[in-house]
């Protein structure tokens, strides 16, 4: 029992933090803002998806660089799965954003067509779409090369380029253009302690850690599963 606790303490931490996120996220006090109202609580869910995606992509590129230095195939497998789960979280962030957007940004006084015009011009939407497309291409590229070593080397290099493109597409360009998202041209609202309300930070930071741990947990399961599959193929 003690051994299990020592090895999987972070999984238990993940459970505790996410339970806190859901309970505190629904019940604790939030600022009363017009247009947002109670949907401001989506910060604990929608925004955390993107944070989790960024962290998983970062881990992925670290493993890609490690593969290029060590040539160990396990590094490549790790890199692949971290990118894959990162994509899943990115898609979840997109999907949750669609729901949130349609209740806050879409202007009820306008026709839906006009609202769509305003929303589709949103630089963060376009930027993240490009970033996710680049990672989709990473997956397609992987599956199109049958030679294992060649695939690992080419896709590791591609992974570095994909990660480099995250900088302009989701961190720089959306912050230079007018945006419906908070922050816009004035930098990073989620991490700026002067911007985000202190009551919300109480839940937001644990939520980011909890969601990230969940992403890592799912990734490790996928990695272990694919290692088992590789072993079976070798036998």
């Amino acid at each position, binding site marked *: 029992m003690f051994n299990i606790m020592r090895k*999987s303490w972070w*999984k238990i931490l993940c*459970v505790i933090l*996410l*339970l806190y996120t*859901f*309970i505190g996220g*629904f*019940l604790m006090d939030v*600022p*009363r*803002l*017009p*247009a*947002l*109202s*109670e949907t401001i609580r989506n910060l604990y869910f929608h925004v955390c998806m993107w944070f989790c995606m960024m962290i998983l992509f970062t881990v992925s590129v670290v493993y890609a660089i490690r593969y290029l230095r060590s040539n160990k195939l396990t590094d490549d497998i790790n890199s692949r799965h971290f990118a894959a789960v990162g994509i899943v979280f990115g898609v979840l962030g997109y999907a949750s954003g669609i729901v949130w957007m349609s209740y806050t940004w879409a202007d009820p006084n306008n026709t839906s067509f006009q609202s769509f015009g305003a929303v589709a011009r949103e630089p963060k939407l376009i930027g993240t779409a490009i970033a996710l497309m680049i990672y989709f291409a990473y997956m397609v590229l992987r599956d199109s090369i049958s030679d294992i070593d060649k695939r690992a080397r080419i896709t590791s290099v591609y992974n570095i380029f994909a990660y480099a493109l995250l900088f302009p597409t989701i961190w720089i360009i959306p912050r230079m253009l007018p945006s419906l998202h908070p922050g816009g041209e004035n930098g990073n609202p989620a991490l700026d302690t002067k911007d985000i309300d202190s009551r919300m930070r109480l839940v937001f930071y644990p939520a980011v850690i909890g969601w990230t741990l969940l992403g890592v*947990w*799912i990734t490790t*399961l996928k990695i*272990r*599963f694919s290692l*088992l599959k590789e*072993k*079976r193929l070798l036998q």
Partner: protein
Amino acid sequence: MRTIKYLSALIISLLLTLINHAQTDTAEMADTMRSNGRIYVVVAVVVVILLGLFLYLFRLDKKITRFEKNGS
């Protein structure tokens, strides 16, 4: 400092309500949900779903561990 922040937030929200004729109070929140306690039902449901998902993940984890130990 904090009071200034709250005061300015209050003033801004009051100004916004002047622009927004539709809203008489500040922002509309789920106050009725909270006053009659129904919000706890939502929280309970979400927690049940979350616990179920965690249980599933833990079982999956254990299953994979067993496979790893058996070497098959």
